[in-house]
């Protein structure tokens, strides 16, 4: 299933991906990561289309990995 893998300790909680996602698949959670940021969580389940916008706008190189059904 399409989904976004979140490396919680690489996320700085800027929420730019949250605003970018067209289907509301991402939210900022309540818990803190090792850097002390409230990191993003994936709540998309069946809504994610693996469009990659979250990855593209995210400033961190490896915080997000987008998995999709379609072939690259």
């Amino acid at each position, binding site marked *: 299933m399409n989904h976004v893998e979140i490396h919680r300790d*690489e996320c700085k909680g800027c929420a730019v991906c949250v605003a970018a996602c067209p289907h509301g698949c991402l939210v900022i959670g309540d818990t803190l990561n090792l850097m002390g940021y409230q990191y993003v969580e994936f709540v998309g389940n069946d809504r994610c289309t693996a469009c990659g916008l979250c990855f*593209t*706008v995210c400033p961190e*190189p490896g915080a997000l990995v987008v998995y999709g059904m379609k072939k690259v």
Partner: protein
Amino acid sequence: MPDVQIQYSKSASMYQLFFRKENDQKTTHYCPGCGHGTAQKLIASVIDELAIQDRTVFLSPVGCSVFSYYYFDTGNIQCSHGRAPAVATGIRRTLSDAIIIAYQGDGDLAGIGMTEIVHAANRGENITVFFINNAIYGMTGGQMAPTTPIGVKTLTTPEGRSKSRDGNPIGMCELLASLQAPAYIERCSLSTPKQVLRTRLAIKKALDYQVRKKGFSFVEILSPCPTNWRMSPLDARAWIAGELEGDIFPLKCFRDVPQEIQPDSLSVIRPDIVTLLTKDSILKTSYDGPPRAPKYIKIAGFGGQGVLSAGELVAFSALEEGFNVSWLPSYGPEMRGGSANASVICSDEPIGSPVVDCPNVLIAMNNPSLELFENSVTNNGIIVLNSSLVERKPRRTDVKTYAIPATDIAKKAGLVSAANVVMITALAAITGFLHVSTVKHSIGNVLRKKLYTDKNLEIVENTLSYLREKEMM
């Protein structure tokens, strides 16, 4: 989930681990929501797509993105403030196939580096410049930049930028578009996902032009600085869309005219130029004798004593004897009377740095030079001092000292300025690391006034007589 595949992940052009810090080696040093991270990811993904990673040279600027070389797994050079286009020009002259990316902020490019960017653009260098415009000096804490809009409060404009006091913000795209040479100039923005995707297209086009040798490409990227703007990452993006993208920095393509780059006529080795540059000397290009110990030589004295020329004399002689050589002068603004020194390295191996901190040969032409450099000489090093002017003996007992009355010998022959030739002759004769015959031959190459060549050669002979008399050789 058998058929699920990775669609988007960390670019292969970025290192898997960033070794800048001991911990957190997977994250950048950028603040939350910083535009640099997004812009650099876009660049890295385009490097992947164009398959140019192994020939890309990424030029980091001075500013927040100074540490880009920790992130890009490409060639990297960290440039002096604003000088990336000049460095890019140098690389272009020497590596015709390199893909050269100058990545610069607005303080770096539009502030201190205004000269370099304008001239590189005007020459139409086949390079790509990514100009990250966040309208403020980020790394230094939020001072007004050349690109700060009117009315915006910064550390140095506490009441807002004033047109009458500070001038209008500078549009770099508009400025460079007034030149004829550039092939591609576009302004983009990281304000919204749509604009981010357009920015990626511009980055790809710019690099593609360079790959196809179509000339100078320049992409300005309006980028958020939430920390110094004192906004949330999302508010900062909204501010770009609402305030910057309008009249001040309109998003558009300013130039798209691919150029035909002519090969540089000087990049081909021409025999006539080689002859012109080397006709007075027969430079050996190789040496196949037994290995020789490298010499790290410091020659010091006051300006006018021929300190730098003495260094040149050693350097030219060593070149003739097949050494690799570096010559690095250091002097004040005075042509006469100040202090000067030259660092010369002669080595069978390639020389990485021309700096000589711990010489194994010190040539001290006067008192202050001995004071300054005596303690830096290595164990078992050599000090040759000009005993006409140096009043004391070296305090070091672990070095060999040779006292030569160089100024007296030179004066006696009627050419007081040739004390340097005396010293170098003595160095060659005593240590044997250069042949005196080579030094004599090189005098003709180093001397500006050919009139005195014979007099200098006479002084070489007088020096040898003195050394024989004192049984120093």
